[in-house]
């Protein structure tokens, strides 16, 4: 049984995982339903021609909600992946393993991403429903998916790093959510400032996420998500190495 499979098996056998997934899926489904109602009401008022752009106006805000929900899930799961192992004392098996630090962390990281995958189901259902009501602009959907994926990778790396440095899973999850909220709000705070002076936005995942959502992929956003993700993952690997030879 590989480490990746172990993580997924353990999480799938936890009732709390299913409870959280059910709550989040219900939340996403509910939001999608409310948005669909809005689409149908607008179609009745403005006629079928206007509905094309309306459908696309729903996609971006919906993906923003999906992204935030999935990030909260990542923060909760990451706490269980490493901090919980420290708390239970099972981390010694990993520390005394013959696998390299990078491999251990890669398995943990992949497991975290795969555990978020079930959230794709309500997203797929919502998109399928909207595509029946109006023609969707698939490139817009693609940009939104890309923005979500990059944000997810970056935040997963951040959460894994927080988790390996904490011995309390609840605290790791809480800190992850708090950090996300601060960085997200930082992007909003810098929003009104003149370009060049709004430095807060450069450090906020929100700004980079929104640019990519609108089909703009500046180098700074790629550096932020990909470079930042790689650095945070590297820090997590180093933290594991430090724990191994304390």
């Amino acid at each position, binding site marked *: *049984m*590989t*480490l990746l499979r*172990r993580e997924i*098996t*353990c999480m799938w*056998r*936890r009732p709390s995982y299913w409870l959280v997934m059910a709550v989040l899926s219900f939340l996403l489904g509910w939001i999608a339903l409310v948005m669909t109602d809005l689409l149908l009401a607008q179609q009745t008022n403005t006629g079928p021609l206007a509905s094309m752009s309306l459908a696309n106006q729903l996609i971006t805000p919906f993906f923003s909600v999906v992204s935030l929900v999935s990030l909260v899930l990542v923060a909760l799961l990451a706490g269980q992946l490493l901090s919980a192992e420290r708390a*239970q*004392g*099972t981390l*010694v*098996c*990993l*520390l*005394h*393993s*013959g*696998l*390299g*630090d990078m*491999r251990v962390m890669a398995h943990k990281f992949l497991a975290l991403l795969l555990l978020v995958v079930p959230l794709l189901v309500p997203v797929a259902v919502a998109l399928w429903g909207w595509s029946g009501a109006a023609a969707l602009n698939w490139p817009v959907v693609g940009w939104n998916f890309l923005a979500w994926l990059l944000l997810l990778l970056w935040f997963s790396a951040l959460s894994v790093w927080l988790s390996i440095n904490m011995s309390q899973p609840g605290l790791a999850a809480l800190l992850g959510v708090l950090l996300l909220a601060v960085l997200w709000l930082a992007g909003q705070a810098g929003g009104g400032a003149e370009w060049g002076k709004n430095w807060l936005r450069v450090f906020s995942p929100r700004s980079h996420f929104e640019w990519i959502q609108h089909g703009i992929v500046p180098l700074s956003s790629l550096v932020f998500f990909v470079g930042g993700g790689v650095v945070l993952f590297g820090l997590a690997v180093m933290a594991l190495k430090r724990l*191994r*030879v*304390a």
Partner: protein
Amino acid sequence: MLLGPNGAGKSTLLNALAGLLLPDNGQIKLVFRPADDDSAQEKEYLCQRHDISAWNRHTAYMPEHVRLLPRLSVHETVSHAAYLKTGMMNTQAVKDVLALCDLQKHAHRPVETLSLGYRQRVGLACALVHRPLLLLLDEPMNGLDPENARYFVDILKRLKSRHIILMSTHLLDQLADLADRVVVMHNGRIAGELSPLSVEHGDTSKAGLLRQWQLAFAGGLTTEIRQRIEALCPIMKTMPKAVVVESDPERNRQLMQVLGPLGLYAVSPYRDSGPVPEGGAWFSAYRHILHRASEDIST
């Protein structure tokens, strides 16, 4: 076999040998001659900070309290341990080690439903599954009932020919059966080495050599402690944190069992002139007594 009182450094040494702690200075090197190699060439592995995973592939460590992931079955746990050590799946090795530890019947039970004895067996199976050269066991039989402890001793006896085993223990009656060498630790250093035979003889015959023993308590004497001692043997002398009793090895074992949870941390031989020797280094004294016992028997 590693012997020593609490705080002697046994677990620290085992952790260092397991690669979980690196020494401030010096090196940890595993030098061995493979039994199946006629060329008799010695091989060696070095425990290095930058490549600790390579060291881990040749060693196995079983802590005193084995921690297992509760939601996995026994088979999944052992199979995962095999992967962690070698990076590969080895179904046959998992089957073999489950058979060795008599766990086939429980292979599909979640580990959270197992008793302590079976959990320790799963821990041992995890340690053995990659066929390590060096097997490190930190008081593996602590808390086990006599039946499971006996079973554990039987398994370890079978493993002696296949692995280099280093085990720490407080239980002297296991030594004669299991140990080839008995190393006594005190204050982080090796205080001496005993032959298992002398331990065995000492356990059974030293009653005639020494009758008075000093029992020292970490938290001082209480009424309960006094009552428990008096139920087993007479108290000869009382000190602020210790008593001198008239006892024998069999009764000492009972005293250790009864008084261990109440803070008993040292049992030293006692003469009228005072404790032997000073400083609570009871193992040195114990060693002296055991040697005297074995000499006495041999003459």
